[in-house]
């Protein structure tokens, strides 16, 4: 039952030689074999590579080398992060057989820590979606109820961690794609400050919003993974030059005097009442622990969703232009008369409908004569939202809200209604627009499905949100596990 443990628990067992990396690796792959046919969290599995690395870790243990905290830990990687020599599909037909020649910086950093990669996880195609139903291959199921979605777009990563098919995973978050699935799957997910983790090698969806982050079983693991993947990368001009912090220093059970703001815009219309109740209970617990909880307001946040659905598609329309059938990936097999026809057919056949919808939306928002009214206006709204957050953080240490307005919904329930689907990210999008860090932690179950609590912090103040999350986790120990194989 090694697969049920966290990375920090397993690290203790590895260094005390209570278990070995190979044993752990085999245990996790057995678990994968047992449940994967139901969950379908992975697009590809890399068992052979995993065992090879696990062996190397065990050799290190034998020769009494120091083990990094994540060495030997089975890890799942979202399939939009390039992994050298291992297929990276973005869950798209257009990259179905694409094998990168290099690894993304965040993954490379984990490899340097000797993690054991289990495989690449399912997602909404090009990270566009909130349910993982937009995968060109198959939908992933929520381990808590196989009839429901795991959220998205990092649904495969969140489901894999929730189903113990990986000890932790990497996801990417453009509008909530780490936090929302973490919330729906009852695990911890963090979107760090924009620029804290290098985007090099992350297949871009919306460059000014994308950020890689950890999906873990608890807050301690979240801090450990963040330690491993953060830092300035010369290959990413937008990565930040910050001083190196040890995020495990945030892991103290003390929120006395912590000023918690609750923006009323996140607790109003559209939020499921049961979800709201769970969040209110969580806030009461914070008060009980000595935090000061107050209602506040972010006046422009109501426009966040609209601004996001102009900025993100605009950037995506340009970022996804390169998938044109010329150099790599899918090319139409139909006979074509000229170049334009090759482009059109390739892209018409290679992209799914949500991706095409967003490319068209984005191209329109950027087109001559509309730029100012759409893209320009959205950027102005973005500036106002940043100012709102800045003002709020003058008063509060953290802002708390539900992560997702609802618990996991039924597979197929929202696919026909994109706008309804877009509403899934209404609580998470503002943090992406503002570039601030935010974490989602489980705060209970309603009707047997997990509810997530979102804690947002000042830019580069991951320490404070980790502290709040850790303290909450100590008081509200979320011990439940999905009923996949019984408790």
């Amino acid at each position, binding site marked *: 039952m090694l697969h049920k443990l966290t990375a920090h628990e397993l690290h203790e067992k590895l260094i005390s030689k209570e278990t070995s990396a190979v044993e752990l690796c085999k245990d996790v792959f057995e678990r994968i074999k047992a449940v994967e046919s139901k969950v379908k969290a992975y697009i590809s599995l890399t068992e052979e590579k995993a065992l090879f690395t696990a062996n190397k870790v065990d050799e290190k243990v034998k020769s009494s080398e120091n083990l990094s905290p994540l060495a030997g830990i089975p890890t799942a990687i979202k399939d939009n992060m390039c992994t050298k020599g291992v297929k990276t599909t973005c869950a798209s037909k257009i990259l179905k057989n694409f094998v990168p020649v290099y690894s993304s910086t965040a993954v490379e950093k984990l490899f340097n820590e000797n993690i054991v990669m289990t495989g690449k996880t399912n997602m909404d195609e090009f990270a566009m979606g909130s349910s993982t139903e937009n995968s060109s291959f198959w939908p992933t199921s929520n381990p808590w109820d196989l009839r429901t979605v795991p959220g998205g777009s990092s649904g495969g990563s969140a489901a894999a961690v929730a189903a113990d098919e990986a000890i932790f995973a990497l996801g990417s978050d453009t509008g909530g794609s780490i936090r929302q699935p973490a919330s729906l799957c009852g695990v911890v997910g963090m979107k760090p400050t924009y620029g804290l983790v290098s985007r*090099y090698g992350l297949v871009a969806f919306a460059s000014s919003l994308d950020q890689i982050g950890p999906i873990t079983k608890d807050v301690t693991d979240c801090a450990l993974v963040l330690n491993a993947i953060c830092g300035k990368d010369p290959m990413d*001009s937008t990565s930040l030059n910050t001083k190196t912090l040890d995020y495990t220093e945030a892991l103290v059970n003390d929120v006395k005097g912590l000023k918690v703001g609750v923006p009323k815009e996140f607790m109003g219309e559209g939020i499921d009442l049961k979800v709201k109740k769970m969040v209110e209970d969580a806030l009461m617990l914070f008060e009980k622990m000595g935090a000061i909880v107050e209602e506040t307001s972010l006046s422009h946040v109501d426009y966040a969703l609209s601004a996001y659905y102009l900025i993100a598609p605009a*950037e995506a329309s*340009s970022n996804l232009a390169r998938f044109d059938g010329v*150099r790599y990936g899918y090319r139409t097999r139909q006979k074509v008369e000229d*170049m334009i026809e090759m482009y059109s057919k390739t892209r018409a056949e290679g992209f799914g409908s949500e991706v095409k919808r967003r490319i068209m939306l984005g191209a329109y928002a950027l087109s001559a004569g509309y730029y100012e009214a759409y893209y320009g206006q959205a950027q102005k709204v973005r500036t106002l939202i940043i100012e709102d957050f800045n003002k709020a953080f003058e008063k509060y240490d953290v802002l708390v809200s539900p992560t997702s307005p609802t618990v996991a919904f039924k597979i197929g329930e929202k696919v026909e209604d994109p706008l309804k689907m877009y509403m899934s990210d209404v609580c998470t999008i503002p943090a992406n627009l503002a570039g601030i860090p935010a974490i989602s932690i489980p705060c209970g179950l309603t009707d047997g499905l997990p509810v997530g609590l979102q804690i947002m912090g000042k830019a580069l103040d991951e320490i404070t949100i980790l502290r709040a999350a850790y303290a909450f986790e100590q008081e509200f120990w979320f011990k439940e596990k999905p009923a996949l194989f019984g408790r």
Partner: protein
Amino acid sequence: MNYEAVIGLEIHVELNTESKMFCGCSARVFGEKPNTHTCPVCLGMPGSLPVVNEKAIECTAKIGLALNSKIASFTKFDRKNYFYPDMPKDYQISQYDLPICEGGCVDVEIAGLAPEGSDPRGYVRRVGITRVHLEEDTGKLIHIGESGRIGGAEYSLVDFNRAGVPLVEIVTEPDIRTPDEAKAFVQKLKNIIEHLGVSDCDMEKGFFRCDANVSLRPLGTEELGTKSEVKNMNSFRAIQRALAYEIERQGELLGAGERVIQETRHWDAAKNVTMSLRSKEEAHDYRYFPEPDLVPMELSRNWVEELKASLPELPNARKKRFIEDYGLTLYDAEFLTSSKTVGDYFEECAKDYPDVKKISNWIMGELTMHLNAVNLKIDESAVTPRHLVQLIKLIDEGAISGKMAKDIFKEMFETGKLPGIIIEEKGLVQISNEKEIDKIVDMVLEENQKAIEEYRSGKDRAFGFLIGQIMRLTKGRANPQLVNDVLRKKLS
């Protein structure tokens, strides 16, 4: 009705930085094996990100400073979106509303009559600079098929070596009025950039490319007519001819009461015509927006000042110095500073030899003549500055005559041999020994009694005849001055 042409130019200059614009690949890719200078970044592989080459920013600002532009204190990159197989990302990282340099002007000396009629000895045209910005170059398509062009090609191959090489675009105001002015401006611009040392400016290799916007308007009016954009002018001559053709074509249309269509036209140097490529309706909407993968840059005033102070000598200053320091005429100085390499050649010679007038005569005369005949540039000449100075010194020493020197120079130019070696090989050393000359003169006089009599009876022509006989006998190697002196003495 009389029309006036209104011409604005767009010049693309490939910088000669070590590495490409946004990755670490070498930017020196001309003639290299296709797709050998590439990486995930310049191939636009999924997930790759650009990182700015700061040297390229510096080079662009230098160009701006040399063109009297204002250097932006805040500048950024933008994406220009369009699909084309030579562009790996299907967008080009370029600059839209905040280029590195804005404004500026260049004064161009034009030989001959101004179009509006002025000083017949020439005039100065001031050409305004709109902007100078930085972008990345595209790859190259090779079309396989009979035509070699995309139309009718069986298939096309892409070489991404050039993709991502830093490319500077210089846009002028529509201040140019004639093909001659356009050519003179481009020559001057190229000369300035060569002096800055930021580009190799080789037009044949495509390092320096020129497009033009051309329109006509009735003489004396201000409003601009409909323009066409002329592309593919790959030499100074092509610029002149293409613009002349385009002006005539538009003039004929307007003269016949027809309208000029706004379109892009391609100069076909072989057929001597411009041909329509695409009309305005087919023009792209580039959907520019700020490049989110790069952060905007602040260029500090200190940095700009330091850069300004570090600028090398530019053609105008060099011309002035050539006149003042070397005592050259304006004409010679202008010729010798018309290109960086010619000026460098001259100064290299001048280091070793004080009589610069002789140097400039050789450069402007024999050397230029031979270079033009085989279409070579001065830095490709087999006759190095050192060789040329050796040759001039041999004339000074009397070892060879001026006439012999020209023949020797020809051989030097063709073979790259040192003048001394050629003289030795061909036995060309001048006869300057008085005794030897004496003997030869005596021999000739003995055989030409008739000419002596004629000379003495006052026929000067006979003197020339005798000189000719002596030269013939010595195969031109006799020192002419000495022969002259000896002969005159003997005849008197």
